[in-house]
């Protein structure tokens, strides 16, 4: 909270309860305020009525058909399918454990004080293999579950977060390459970025799933999930590269010249001087890109991968519930997407504050 108060700009001393004045200062303002309050109250009444008062909490589809409110038994019946998709029912503790492990590790990794080479190594050497073993099985007495059966939330997380994590270094490398003095590298980077940015994600996904297998020798099939993951990484990398380039250009030339004057070589200047400043500047656009990508991964439904939104949608088409519960499923999906997007947004604001108060 201390940082928050610091960031409030100093101005003339505030009058007592200015919000009252803002809300009811003039007849016009009072009218608008009254109108908004009424509208909000009406909305809240409808929402509470539908979500709670008229809602059906236990029972069967038939009970829901009678009730006029939300149909929560639908969520109860379909929750596990919506979250885990076609993952074998008895084995669903595994994606659940993987999800918890991932979220826990991600939470720990969000603390800037813990950032170190060790943490990165722990992710690469321990966590990611552990997550993979949990999902895929085949060793340690876990039965093998092919990736075609992965679905739902773990799949969405995997595609978006692993995709972005892998795209980040690639994107930074591309951004640096684009500014390189070596023409070959620069041209390659520019062509890659412009080509990838010039086509929609869907066409890349199609390319990865439809075209690629046909160019493969017979019998060689690369996992469809992996193909989609690679497409997402490449796509994200091109966008990250452009955002990072913006950050690089915002770092004053004098910084590089100072580094040169000290006799540091290129990589050291980049790593120690330019990139830390550049990346800090681009936290907001990077995070909005991340949030966008988290939601864009729903596009994989077009190539037959069952992401979270798709499991929700297919659960809604169960004939027993069809036409009874529609909004409930979408609300649940919206709630999950909103929660994680909002968390990412909050974390981005935290990072910005953290850097503003500890440096500069």
């Amino acid at each position, binding site marked *: 909270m201390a940082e928050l108060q610091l960031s409030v700009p100093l101005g003339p001393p505030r009058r007592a309860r200015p919000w009252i004045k803002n809300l009811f200062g003039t007849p016009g303002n009072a009218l608008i305020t009254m109108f908004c309050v009424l509208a909000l109250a009406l909305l809240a009444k409808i929402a509470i009525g539908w979500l709670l008062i008229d809602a059906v909490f236990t029972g069967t589809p038939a009970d829901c*058909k009678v009730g006029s409110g939300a149909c929560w038994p639908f969520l109860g*019946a*379909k929750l*596990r*399918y919506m979250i*885990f*998709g*076609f*993952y*074998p*029912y008895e084995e669903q503790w595994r994606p659940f454990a993987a999800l918890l492990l991932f979220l826990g590790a991600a939470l720990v990794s969000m603390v800037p004080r813990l950032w170190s080479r060790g943490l990165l190594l722990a992710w690469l050497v321990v966590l990611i293999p552990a997550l993979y073993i949990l999902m895929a099985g085949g060793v340690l007495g876990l039965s093998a579950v*092919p990736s*075609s*059966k992965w679905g739902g939330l773990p799949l969405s997380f995997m595609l978006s977060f692993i995709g972005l994590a892998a795209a980040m270094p690639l994107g930074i490398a591309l951004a640096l390459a684009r500014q390189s003095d070596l023409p070959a590298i620069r041209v390659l980077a520019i062509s890659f970025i412009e080509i990838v940015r010039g086509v929609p994600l869907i066409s890349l996904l*199609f390319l990865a*799933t*439809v*075209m690629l*297998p*046909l160019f*493969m*020798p*017979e*019998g060689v*099939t690369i996992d*469809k999930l992996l193909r989609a993951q690679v497409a997402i990484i490449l796509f994200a990398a091109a966008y990250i590269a452009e955002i990072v380039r913006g950050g690089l250009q915002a770092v004053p030339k004098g910084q590089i010249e100072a580094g040169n004057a000290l006799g540091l070589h290129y990589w050291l200047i980049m790593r120690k001087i330019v990139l830390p400043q550049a990346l800090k500047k681009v936290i907001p656009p990077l995070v909005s890109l991340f949030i966008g990508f988290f939601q864009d991964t729903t596009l994989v*439904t*077009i*190539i*037959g991968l*069952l992401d979270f939104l*798709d499991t929700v*949608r*297919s*659960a*809604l*088409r*169960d*004939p*027993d519930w*069809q*036409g*009874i519960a*529609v909004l409930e499923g979408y609300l649940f999906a919206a709630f999950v997407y909103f929660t994680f997007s909002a968390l990412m947004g909050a974390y981005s604001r935290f990072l910005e504050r953290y850097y503003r108060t500890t440096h500069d």
Partner: protein
Amino acid sequence: MKKSVLTVAGVAALGAMAVSAGAATLDTVKGRGKLICGVSLATPGFAAPDDKGRMTGFDADICRSIAVAVFGDGDKVDFVPTNINTRFQAVQSGEVDVLSRQTTLTYTREASLGLDFGPTVFYDGQGLMVAKSLGVASAKELQDAAICTLPGTTTAQNLSDFFRTLGAKFELVVFESPDENRAAFFGGRCQAISSDRSDLASIRAVANNPDDYILLPETISKEPLAPAVRQNDSAWRDIVSWSVWMLMAAEEKGITQANVDEKLKSEDPEIQRMLGVTDELGPMLGLDKKWGYNIIKSVGNYGEVFERNMGQGTRLGMTRGPNTQWNAGGLLYAPPIR
């Protein structure tokens, strides 16, 4: 069932490129220990996950009977939900061993997509549904009607073909999602809704009062739905075809899941051959001698599969229509098993 011209053109071009030599699918399937079957993701009656994520439905049961024929175990099948845009590619690339996904057998698909189709498992056709209150008993009485459909060129084309021959006008109202389409029809935005008859039955099933709506008698297109396999692997296609025909033959011979054990003692020589009591028919296709018995024991016959997934006892409440045995006036005609 439906497709856009673009997709077909694209997949056709790709299909031409597809290399089709390679390992026999049966060996691949046996080596893997599982059949991989492409189905649709959520089409109630044909393929839809239950609360535990287990695939149920008519198409899923077709997959199970193939798995039973190969392994003697209907659980040795992995279902891969395929998208309508990538389903053919999934077969061509070997991602799925068989595509059992409400796919209409057509000339172009068979000729240019690098696919071979098995026998028709379900005779569907595009139909029209209206509210009873409209007072229309035949599609021919529809004049200047607004018709709700999903996108897909064949749906619209069939409608315009049909109404052009009648010299009548109609207005097409296209919705992207099935939910919107349904809601628009029930909400009175359109006088009629058009889709495959099986689909219309499931739309009708979710109406507040299904009896308010009637399916008009006209079927304006032929949609024979058939499983598809990769081209040039006739041994594998044979297995798919005969697994389907076994289901039909079992119904014709009155063999059910319940009485299949008694039928082992049947005097009928064809039943004996089907159930592997006499002759060694299974091994000719590389299958177990008792493959027919196994299919009926674990999946049932065609009629049982139909009734279980979309028949009168289910919410879809579909009648057999043309999907009855040839000797009962239907189109199901399994070649003799001998």
